[in-house]
Structure formats: C-alpha cells, structure tokens
C-alpha cells in the first residue's frame, strides 16, 4: 500500500514539473497556468526622455502557493531578470516588498503568500527619440507550496511611449499601494557583530516607534542562521536583535527590519561592537513566540507585577487621587471602633479599584488585539471621555470646596458617598478611573510588559496596579496601629477637605489643557460654558440644601442634559485634524503641510521655500530638528528672510511624498530642500546645523544685493 502511495506522490511531483515546463511557451500567449503568474505593468504608458518610469511585476500566487524574497532563506530561489531594452534605456535594481517568514520543519523561507509587486525603475536617456519604446524581460522565479516547488519563468513585455516634455503623463494609482508595501530606507546606519556563533544587530530607531513582532531579514547569505529565533530588545533609541551567526566574512550587510504587517525599513549595517542591552520586546517572526511557560516570561511577569503594585501605591499621592483617598481614609478611621465594618469597607474599596483597573486593562488589550495603536490612558485620547472626566473632577472639587453636599440617597457618581460597602466600592472604582492619567513613567515599563505577556498574565498586571492603589486602605483596615496614628476627625477636617479642593481643581485644569490640545480653543470655550452651567447648577443645588429645599432630581436631570449637550458640542474628527495641524504650528519654526500644489504656489509668488521631509521613526530627522530646524535662531532668520516652510511627514507611507522623494533621487527621509526664488532647488546636507539654515537667509541677502 505504502509503496503505491509513494509512487503516486512521485508521479504527481513529476507531473507538476512536466506541466511547468511547457508553461513558458504558453503563458506568453496569455494562458495563466503558472502557479505564481506575473504581469508586467507600467506606472505610466508615457515617459519623457531624460525621465524614469516605474514598472511593476505584479505577482499573484494561487492559493497555498508562495513566491520568494530576494534572499529566499534556507531554501528556494530569488527572482531573476534578464532585460531586453532599447539603446539608452536602463533598468534599476528590483525593489521587493517587505516579506513574511515561513518556517517548515526547521527550514526558514522568506516569502510572499498573497499578491505582491516587485518594482523596477526604468531610466530613459535624454536623447531617446519620440515614439514606441518596447521593453521586454525574461524572468525566472520559484513557486512553492509547503510541499513542492516549481521553477517558473515568463517572457514579459510592454511597449511604452516616449512623449515630449509638455505631454501629459497619467499615473496608475495602483502603484501607490505597491510602493506602500516596500520597506522604507531607515536613513541611519546600523551596526552588527558576528562572533562566537552570536549575531547582533543594533538599529537606530526612536523609542517612540511602535514595533510588532520585529524581524530582521538579511540580504546576504552565510551570516546568520535563518531558522534560529531572533531575540529583540529595545534600549532607548536602539533596537537590538540577537540570533545565531553562521559566519563573519562580511564587513557590511543590508536587510529589512519588519515592524508590522507589510511595514518595515531597509537598512545597511557596518561591522562593529554590539552588546545586548535594554528590555525584550515581542518574540521575533511568526511562530517563534513562546508562551507564558517560558522561564524568562515568568520572571518578567513577577518583575512587571512588582512594578505595577509599587506604581499603584505611588498613584495614591497623585493630585487627582489623593483628595478622594485621604478623605476616605479618614472616614474609615472614623468608623475606628468597629473593626469588621472597617475591614468590610476596605475590601469593598479594593474590589472597586481592582475591577476597574482590570476592566480598563481588558479594554486596552482588546483594542490592541484589534490592531489599534493604543497605550495606557488610551481613554484620554477621546475628548468625550475627557469631558466626562472633567465634569466629574470639577464636581468633586466643588464638593470638596463645600459648595454643595451629597445626599445619602442618590445615584450615579454620588454612590461614592453612600455609607457601607457599596459606597466604598464606588469610591474605589472612581479612584482607579481618575488615577489613570497620572501613571508614573516607570509604570509604563510594567505596562509595556503586558504587551508581550499572554492575556491572562497581562490582566494580572492590571490587577496588580489596582492592588497597589488599594494597598494603603488595606493597611489601615487590617493594621490597627496605623489606624490609631491617623488624626482624629474634628473641626480641622472641614478645612482640610476644602484645601483638598485645590489639587482637584488642578486636575481639572490639567484636563482642560489636554482637551484644548485636542479640540482647539474655540471648542474648548464652548466646553467651558457647559462646565460653567454645571457649576451653576451645583451651586443652585447647594443653595437649596442650605434652605432645605429638595432640588436633587431637577439638578441631576439638568446636569445630565448639560453633559450630553457638551458631548454633542465637541468637534468631530475632521476639525480635530485641523486642530492637530494648529498644534504643529505652535512649534518654534511653524510649517505648513507639504504639497506640490502649495510649493508651486509659493514658487509662483517668488517666495523662498524651505521644504523638509521627516518621519517619527527617523532618528536623524529628529536629531536635525532638535539641533537645527526647531531653533529660535532658525525661526528668526527664516522670518527675517520671509522663507516659507513646508513639512512633509512620512511617518505613514504617503504616495505623494514617496514620489516627491524619488524625484529628488532619495528613497527616504530626511530630505532638506531650499528653493531660492526663480532658481533650481538646493539639496541641503543630511546633517543640518543652525548655521546651514541661517546661511540660506544670508546668502539670499547677498544675491539680492548683487542683483
């Protein structure tokens, strides 16, 4: 039986191979029996002499089939190109999109599963005559499933038109997507070491850039063991990768750092010393991730848990939490005589804190899992939540200041003052919710660990944060000695309570600032009108309390209406984008977003223009901005010289900027351009100084003089 099935398999394999051979002759005629068929597409049919045009090999693997990256990994073959080009036409190096890993029985393959496009720039020389430009290429590539491989080849051709300098060139928009899948040049050089079977790579990457299971694809063979796991650490503005070395024969290597789905950076690295430092980030590559039973993860869990508990403890001192807590602590002490009541209240409080902290954590993990880039205090990215929090904090502040008292029977946030365990529970819930904006910086490390831990362990960290926050209460409740040391309530408590209104008001001001940055001053003023309304309502309510009038129901209703109204009055997303640009404008050197239209307008108006292209992940860009661009001297000089500033942000792939960079011979950022009126742009050096920029104004003054 086994004999037969083996023969059948063998025959099948031979058959696949046999079928693949005549495919070459047929697919030129348009048949599509290739497993990874290729199409040759041009970004534009027309090209001007002296310009370049981008061609794409659009590869469309059939289900279960894959094609290979330029370095295929342990097995497989990269793609080859044998061009047949008219005189004066040259083809550039093929550009491959960011690949995926496929590990089969310990053999690593660098592949593409879905459709992908390999781009090649074709340069047409100045003296190419107008008319047809036939381009033809013989290409070979390997198509594989997880079981078998078939070498495939095709002869692809396309005829372009060389057109005059004034002729319109229409672009194929599909190329925007193709380009977005390419790795973007990192701009700064990395360092690698390979010795004693250990390969390390240190990549400059700002700490603020999010990475998701990073993996380094090396282009050169014989340096790393492809199938070995890649350990990735972050150490400040560096990302360090460690894996098994295979050899150390090269002084320079290159490759692609993948940081997310179809997203990565191409980089070069020179040999040097690299030590492993920093903190680990998620396991490298698909399928290399080890679960919670890994001993490293277990110690990480304890470390992070400890950090979370200490962090939670410190949160008690934060201005947004301390007032609520101190009063609650004294009220606990008030009940001093009855041990069981105190303990019951403290446990209820702890439950409230832990449940809210864990719930916020669960929502955070859920959002992350769904792909949103969110961090702790993510709820503060939504102005509606800030608004509700602001209303709550303001009301608490006015309450502490003594403008009104909370009745014992009420609903909603007033539950916090309710006697008994329910009241304590809600105080805890409120404290945890209000405390989140105040997470200390070292808490960030503990919370960062939640990203690489399995969900259950991550939730444990959030619970630890809650336990830390509740710890003082547990101590007061369960250690009578501490409770005895608390001051006895008395007349001073009323003054203390009023003083505690100050940090609460400060918290409110902090939230107003945060809200203002998000929604702008116009919308903020409207929001503050609503806040005034709420304050007046509370005042009226408090005055009623003094007179013994029952205004509770009316006030609750009116405040709810005010809050809902306030939420609806908040600006929408579009206005917020405008606002974010306005925030950018408050930088030392204000800039407008880059567009070719705006550049053309300014040039037409004979205004000098400084255009710079940056990205949040580009460390050279950030260094230049801090050292030279965003400097008062530069801003003053530019203002004096009436230089307009355009800023292109390439943090997310932007086809307009990609094309513009390409036009200037750059594959990536930074790029600094200066356009003197009526002159060709000058490309400024990649390392800027204040002098380089201020000299632009001075040299301009000189040229004006000579005119």
């Amino acid at each position: 039986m086994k004999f037969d099935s083996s023969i059948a398999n063998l025959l099948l394999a031979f058959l696949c191979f046999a079928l693949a051979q005549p495919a070459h002759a047929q697919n030129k005629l348009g048949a599509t029996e290739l497993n990874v068929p290729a199409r040759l597409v041009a970004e534009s049919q027309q090209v001007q002499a002296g310009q370049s045009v981008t061609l794409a090999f659009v590869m469309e693997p059939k289900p279960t089939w894959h094609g290979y990256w330029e370095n295929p990994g342990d097995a497989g073959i990269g793609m080859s190109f044998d061009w047949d080009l008219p005189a004066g036409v040259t083809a550039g190096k093929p550009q491959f999109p960011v690949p995926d890993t496929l590990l089969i029985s310990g053999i690593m393959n660098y592949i593409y599963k879905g459709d992908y496009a390999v781009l090649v720039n074709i340069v047409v020389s100045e003296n190419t005559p107008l008319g047809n430009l036939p381009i033809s290429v013989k290409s070979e590539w390997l198509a594989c499933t997880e079981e078998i491989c078939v070498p495939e080849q095709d002869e692809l051709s396309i005829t372009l038109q060389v057109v005059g300098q004034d002729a319109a060139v229409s672009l194929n928009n599909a190329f925007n997507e193709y380009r977005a899948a390419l790795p973007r040049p990192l701009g700064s050089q990395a360092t690698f070491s390979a010795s004693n079977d250990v390969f390390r790579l240190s990549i400059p990457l700002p700490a603020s850039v999010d990475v998701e299971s990073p993996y380094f694809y090396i282009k050169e063979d014989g340096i790393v063991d492809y199938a070995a796991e890649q350990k990735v650490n972050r150490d400040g503005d560096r990302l360090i990768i460690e894996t098994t070395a295979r050899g150390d024969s090269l002084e320079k290597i290159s490759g692609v750092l993948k940081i997310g789905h179809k997203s990565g950076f191409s980089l070069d690295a020179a040999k040097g010393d690299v030590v492993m430092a920093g903190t680990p980030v998620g396991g490298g590559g698909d399928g290399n991730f080890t679960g919670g039973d890994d001993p490293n993860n277990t110690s990480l869990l304890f470390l992070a848990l400890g950090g979370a508990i200490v962090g939670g403890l410190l949160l008690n001192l934060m201005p947004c939490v301390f007032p609520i807590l101190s009063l609650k602590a004294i009220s606990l002490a008030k009940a001093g005589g009855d041990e069981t009541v105190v303990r019951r209240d403290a446990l209820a409080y702890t439950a409230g804190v832990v449940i809210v902290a864990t719930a916020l954590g669960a929502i955070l993990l859920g959002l992350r899992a769904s792909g949103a880039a969110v961090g702790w205090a993510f709820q503060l990215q939504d102005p509606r939540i800030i608004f509700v929090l602001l209303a709550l904090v303001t009301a608490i502040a006015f309450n502490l200041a003594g403008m009104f008292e909370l009745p014992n029977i009420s609903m909603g946030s007033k539950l916090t003052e309710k006697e008994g365990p329910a009241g304590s529970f809600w105080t805890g819930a409120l404290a945890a919710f209000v405390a989140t904006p105040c997470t200390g910086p070292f808490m960030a490390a503990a919370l960062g660990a939640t990203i690489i831990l399995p969900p259950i362990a991550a939730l444990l960290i959030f619970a630890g944060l809650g336990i830390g926050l509740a710890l003082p209460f547990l101590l007061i409740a369960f250690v009578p000695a501490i409770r005895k040391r608390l001051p006895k309530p008395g007349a001073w408590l009323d003054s203390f309570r009023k003083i505690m209104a100050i940090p609460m008001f400060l918290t409110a001001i902090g939230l107003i600032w945060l809200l203002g940055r998000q929604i702008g001053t116009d919308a903020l003023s409207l929001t503050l009108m609503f806040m005034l309304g709420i304050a007046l309502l509370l005042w009226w309510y408090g005055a009623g309390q003094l007179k013994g009038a029952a205004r509770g129901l009316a006030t609750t209703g009116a405040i709810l209406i005010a809050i809902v109204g306030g939420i609806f009055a908040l600006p929408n997303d579009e206005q917020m984008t405008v606002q974010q640009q306005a925030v950018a404008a408050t930088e030392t050197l204000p800039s407008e977003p880059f567009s070719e239209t705006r550049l053309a307008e300014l040039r037409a108006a004979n205004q000098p223009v400084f255009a710079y292209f940056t990205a949040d992940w580009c460390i050279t860009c950030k260094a230049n901005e801090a050292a030279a661009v965003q400097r008062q001297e530069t801003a003053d000089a530019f203002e004096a010289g009436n230089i307009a500033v355009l800023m292109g942000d390439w943090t997310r792939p932007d086809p307009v900027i990609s094309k513009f960079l390409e036009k200037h011979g750059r594959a990536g950022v930074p790029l600094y351009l200066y356009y003197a009126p009526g002159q060709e742009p000058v490309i400024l050096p990649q390392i800027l100084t204040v002098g380089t920029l201020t000299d632009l104004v001075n040299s301009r003054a000189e040229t004006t003089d000579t005119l």
Partner: protein
Amino acid sequence: MRNLTLIPTLAVTAVALASPLAAAQKNGTIAQDFKLTDATGKTVQLSKFRGKNIVLEWHNPGCPFVRKHYDSGNMQATQAAARKKGTIWLTINSGAKGKQGHMTGPEATALLKEQSSKPTHYLLDMKGVVGKAYSAKTTPHMYIINKSGKLVYQGGIDDKPTANKAHIAGARNHVIAALNELNSGKKVSVASSRPYGCSVKYAR
C-alpha cells in the same frame, strides 16, 4: 523488511543526538558519524569509509533542481569523476513518508537504474535524523568529507542557483573542483557555498 530498517535508524538517533548539531556541520571538524540503511537493505556506517574521500548528496527525485542535474547528466558525470579517484558517494534521501520525493528501497533502486545514477549507496533517512544533524537544507545539498573524516566542503553543487539546465555549462562545479584539489593535496579553495534548491521535505 521495514522493521529491520527501524533498528539502525534508532541507533542513529542516539548517535546524532549525542553531540551538538552546530558542531557537526563546521568545516574542519570530524563529520558526524551515522548509520543508515541503503536501498538494498544494507546498513551503511559513515566511519567505515575512513581513509577515502566521501561525497554526501541530499536527494529528492521530485525536486526540479535535482532533476536539472540528473536530466542533464551533470550529477552522473560528477559521480563518475568522483568514482574514478576512489571517492565514496552517498546519496541521502531525507524525505519523510508522504512528502514529495520520499522513496522506499525498491523505488530508489528502480530510479537509479532509470537515471544511470551510480552512487556507492542510496541511503534512506525518512526520519530526517542525519539530514538534520548535517543541517541539510536543500536538495541538492552537497558535503565533502576528506580521508581523515573531516568536513571540507558544504554547499551547492555549483555556483548557478537556478533550475535551468542551460546554466550548467557555464557554472563552476564546486564538488569536482574540491575533489580535484583534495586529490592533488591542496586545500579546498571554495569550502562553502550557498546550497540551492527545494527545501528538504523533513517529517515535521
């Protein structure tokens, strides 16, 4: 027949796991010893060939890259050149049962006859133990062991990593070159190269 082959395979498992894998595949170190059953059911042990140069060739008859070298006669010619100088040639199939290219003894014997392939032995390594000990990644993947049992070459058969027969003529055959150097007492000038081909179809 099948049960008989199982015993040496288990013995090999023990041998291969006894030393670290990485050390076994470094040039200049003593090549990892192993015992495998050949297509005729005979047990073959590597160390028994000490005193002769040995070529190891990883094989998968369904792989287009292997077929490139057999259909063109290039591999048979390389075998003949090796045989002439008394070199032992061990073709090893690490394809797992049910995977592409897996062969039983009789199938392998028939194939060798059909292709006029004349290795000293055609070895069956369906559990992939020897393949993994040598970190054999592709078919073909070539290794050369010198007379004192040291690994002196590992990599591809030549320097043209394609499946196209037309590329054989202009290629440098690393195996023939290395054997010539060994036989004239020289150091192997190209001691490693990138192996190319299909991945070895190991059992998971």
